[in-house]
Structures are given as structure tokens and as C-alpha cells.
């Protein structure tokens, strides 16, 4: 995978988040504050808009926008620049959490021009660990971690088993989707939903739902690559 793969991923993220905006907001209305769809749409749209002017000047010290395909930026920089932009544009809980996830993934990818499936698995693991560290949530707390953690585990396992990329990402996405669905019966222990106590039970977590969309987007791009 080169930088263009990740640029395509970010574009796919923007598309699916926009397409699922209302559903994410409705999930957030049930156990949060009805802004998750708007938050992520704002963030991923900003990444797309920043990507238009193509390559940032080399000596620009501010977080670099994700470049269009063909940019000389390495994949790691594309991803971490997108993370910085999420932090700068989203706000709320999901902004710093997803932003940190992407930044940590980008850092893990480093400056290499090409990313192997194993690199990707390592990077996703790093991203998830960073979210766990920042948000102090564990699986079962009814957060995005319930989707991200199984996704990272499934990808690592598939890659270790030598499964080819598209199939490996399909397994990761399926794990994320199962994890998201499994949040429904849980009682939240982190984020706004925790304020509801037992009333949070019976509703899928919006952040877990969006995390599943983002992992599925990785698979979607791999499938047509």
C-alpha cells in the first residue's frame, strides 16, 4: 500500500461517514448528545478539503493536510496529518480520540513509502493502544474500543496467518462490526452514555458504530486496489 491507498481510505471514510451521518446522530441521540454524525462529517470533510491543494510546502511546520494521490508524502505522514486535522476540527470526545488514533497509526507507519499488511496491522494496533491510553476505556465499556480492539486483533491474526490483504481487512471489519453490534446490550462505563446508567442498555454505541465504518472503509479500498 502506498500513500494513494491511504488517501483513498480517507476519502472513503468521508463518504461513508456522510452517508451514515443521520444514523450515527440518532445513535448518539439515544444515549449521548446527538452530534456524533455531525462531528465526524465535519472532521472527514475537512480532511478532504485540505487534501485538494495537493502537496504542502516541505518546510511548513503545521500539520500537513493529506495529499492527493501521487504526492511525495509517505503513507505515515498522510495518515498522521489527517489525525491532526481531526483534532483541530472535530472537538468533542471523538475528535481527540480518532485524531490520536490516526496520528499514532501514522507515527507507527513512519517514513516508509510502502506499507505491508504487517505494517498496517502494527499501525492499527498502535492506534488502538493510543485510544485506550487516552480514553482509558477497555473492551466492554461500550465505546469505540469495543469495535477497534477486535479489529486490530483480527487483522494481526490474519496477517500472521498469511491471509491476503483484502481478506484480512474483511476479517478486521467483520470483527469491528460484530464488536459494535455487541455494544447494544452493554451498560456504558465511559463517555456520555455512562451518565445514563442502566438506561444506556439496549442501544448500540455511536462511536463503536462509526469505528466499524472506518475499518470497513479500509477493506472497501483494499477490495478495489
Amino acid at each position, binding site marked *: 500500500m502506498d500513500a494513494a491507498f491511504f488517501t483513498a481510505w480517507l476519502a472513503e471514510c468521508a463518504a461513508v461517514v456522510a452517508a451514515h451521518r443521520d444514523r450515527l*446522530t440518532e445513535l448518539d*441521540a*439515544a*444515549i*449521548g*448528545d*446527538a*452530534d456524533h*454524525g*455531525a*462531528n465526524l462529517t*465535519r472532521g472527514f470533510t475537512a480532511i478532504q478539503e485540505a487534501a485538494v491543494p495537493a502537496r504542502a510546502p516541505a518546510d511548513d511546520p503545521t500539520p500537513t493536510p493529506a495529499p492527493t494521490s501521487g504526492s511525495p508524502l509517505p503513507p505515515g505522514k498522510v495518515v498522521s496529518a489527517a489525525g491532526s486535522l481531526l*483534532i*483541530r*476540527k*472535530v*472537538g*468533542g*470526545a*471523538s*475528535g*481527540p*480520540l480518532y485524531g490520536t488514533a490516526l496520528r499514532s497509526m501514522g507515527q507507527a507507519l513512519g517514513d516508509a513509502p510502502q506499507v505491508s499488511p504487517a505494517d498496517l496491522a502494527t499501525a492499527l494496533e498502535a492506534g488502538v493502544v493510543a485510544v485506550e491510553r*487516552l*480514553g482509558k476505556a477497555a473492551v466492554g465499556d461500550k465505546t469505540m474500543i469495543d469495535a477497534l480492539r477486535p479489529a486490530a486483533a483480527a487483522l494481526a491474526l490474519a496477517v500472521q496467518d498469511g491471509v491476503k490483504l483484502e481478506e484480512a481487512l474483511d476479517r478486521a471489519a467483520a470483527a469491528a462490526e460484530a464488536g459494535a453490534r455487541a455494544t447494544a446490550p452493554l*451498560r456504558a*462505563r*465511559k*463517555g*456520555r452514555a*455512562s*451518565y*445514563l*446508567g442502566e*438506561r444506556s442498555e439496549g442501544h448500540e454505541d455511536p462511536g463503536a458504530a462509526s469505528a466499524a465504518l472506518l475499518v470497513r472503509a479500509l477493506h472497501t479500498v483494499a477490495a478495489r486496489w
Partner: protein
Amino acid sequence: MKKLLNDPGDAVADALAGLAAAHPGLRVDVAERVVYRATMTPGKVGLVSGGGSGHEPLHAGFVGYGMLDAACPGEVFTSPVPDQIVQATTAGHGGAGVVHIVKNYTGDVLNFELAAELCAEEGVEVASVLVDDDVAVQDSLYTAGRRGTGATLFVEKIAGALAEAGAPLAEVAATAQLVNGRSRSFGVALSSCTVPSAGKATFALPADQVELGIGIHGEPGRSRAGMGTARELAGLAMDAVHGDLPLEGDLLVLVNGMGGTPLLELYVIFAEVEAYIRGKGARVSRSLVGSYVTSLDMQGFSVSVCRLTDELERLWDAPVETPGLRWGR
């Protein structure tokens, strides 16, 4: 959704333009969404707060003499981003450091933390104070902790007075912390609110029911109960407060409207709250009745109580001149 807005996506920017036009005592950066006092006081400890929009007049309406130096409003119900907070903090820094007053929500905490790190890198000393006064939430390992609600106003006013008086950073932060520790709140909703970007009510509430233990983001409360009289609803709220922090001595009391509640009804609630407090042998020494920490167009109220000390009462009484709170000048 029926709201006095242009594009719902421009709600915050348009409101900030109005705020700027209405209040010459403020300087408003509409593009970056930061609100400052028009004139800063060098050498003074800076006070910066912020949070999602939709709680007006909190926070931008509390920028001015004796209260905040700058505020950064995020999108509706979405905490500000670190850039905004850094910009507000840098401007609010008069050389003596800046206190961040942060309502305890995951998003606010994370964004203010990131901002504080960036400020530290720029050499601005920041002390963060978390407000978590809402007794409706169990403060336990199994929640994100209590929410910051009505007592935020107490913290901003009292810490603001102390900063204005020239106290150093640590003292202002400690007093802000003290006010938070002595304050408790509880809210009741008669209706949901409608987030502009969502376009419809966050929840539906039957005509004969209320939500108990709501926060300020239109989220459902801890439980639902049948609609009651003002006396009953005020009693439920006060029982929750009193059960957590016994009402004693001289109290500062805020009976707060959620945004869509007429003042007439808030005064009816205040009469009940005052009688409740007297019934417990305590005393309402200072009070405020109005819509100060709101949740868009939600109907309902919250009660916030702070157990005053002589010093806190003196600081509460000190002059303040902001769009949302003004006395003594």
C-alpha cells in the same frame, strides 16, 4: 425543527456575530471562535473557559470584568478544539498564568488537556480546574464521573473575582476547586431539546412525564417520572442535592432555566427551593433566578447550590460586568 437560524451549520458563527455586534466590551474572533474581553489586564491571572455551544449565556456571555478573560465556544454540544483553547489561553495570559475551567465531559477534558500541553510548550503556565457538580451521576469507576453543569457559573464568577483582585495562579485555581467541591446540582427536563444539526428532538417525552437528572446536552436523564407539581419536582431535585451534600449554613442558590422555560415558572420553583432550604435549617444567602446554563430550547430547570464561606460570599458580591451577569459596575 423551527429555529431562528440561517443555515443550521452556521448557528454558532452567526450567534457569535450577533454577540460581537451587541457587546462592545467583547472582542470576538468569529472565524476562530474565540471571545475575549476588549481590553485585557496585564499581570492578572487569566481565566479561560469553553465548551460546546447551546448553553448560552455560558461561557461567552461570562467574558468580562470580574469573570472570564476569554471563552471558546465549540459547535453545538461539542467541546472546542485545542486550537481555539490555545488561542484563548495565549490571549488570556497576562504573564501570571491561566486557569482553565473545564466542565467534566470526556470531550472537554481531552481537548483542554491537549491544549494545555501545547500551551505549556509555548511557555504559558496553565492550571486546570474540573467542574463536576451534577449529583445525578454516580461518581464511580463505572462512569465518566459527574458532569459539570450549573456550578460552572459559580466557579467562573468567584474565581474571576479573585483573579481580578490580583491573586496568584495557584490561589485562583484552588478557590475555583473549592467552589466546585462545595457545589452540587440537579436538573429536571419537561421536554427534549433539538440540536440544529440533528434537526429533530433528541428524545420524546410523553405529556405526563419528566426526565430526572438531566445534564445540559439534551441527553435523557437518569430516570423518568410522572409530571409533578413545582413543589414535588423541586423537592426531588433538592432531595438529590441534600442527600449528597447536606444543606447547611449560608447558601448560594441558582434556579436555572434550561433555555425554553419562562421566568414565571423559575420563580415558582425558586419559592419551593427556598422553602425547602429553610426547612432544612439552612439559609439562602445569595441567589440567582434565570436561564444561565442552558440546553438549547429544552424546557425544565436545574438547581445549583454552593455552601458559602464569608470569603466566597465576598467574592460572589464583587463587581462583575459581562453580557450575562452584571452588578457593582
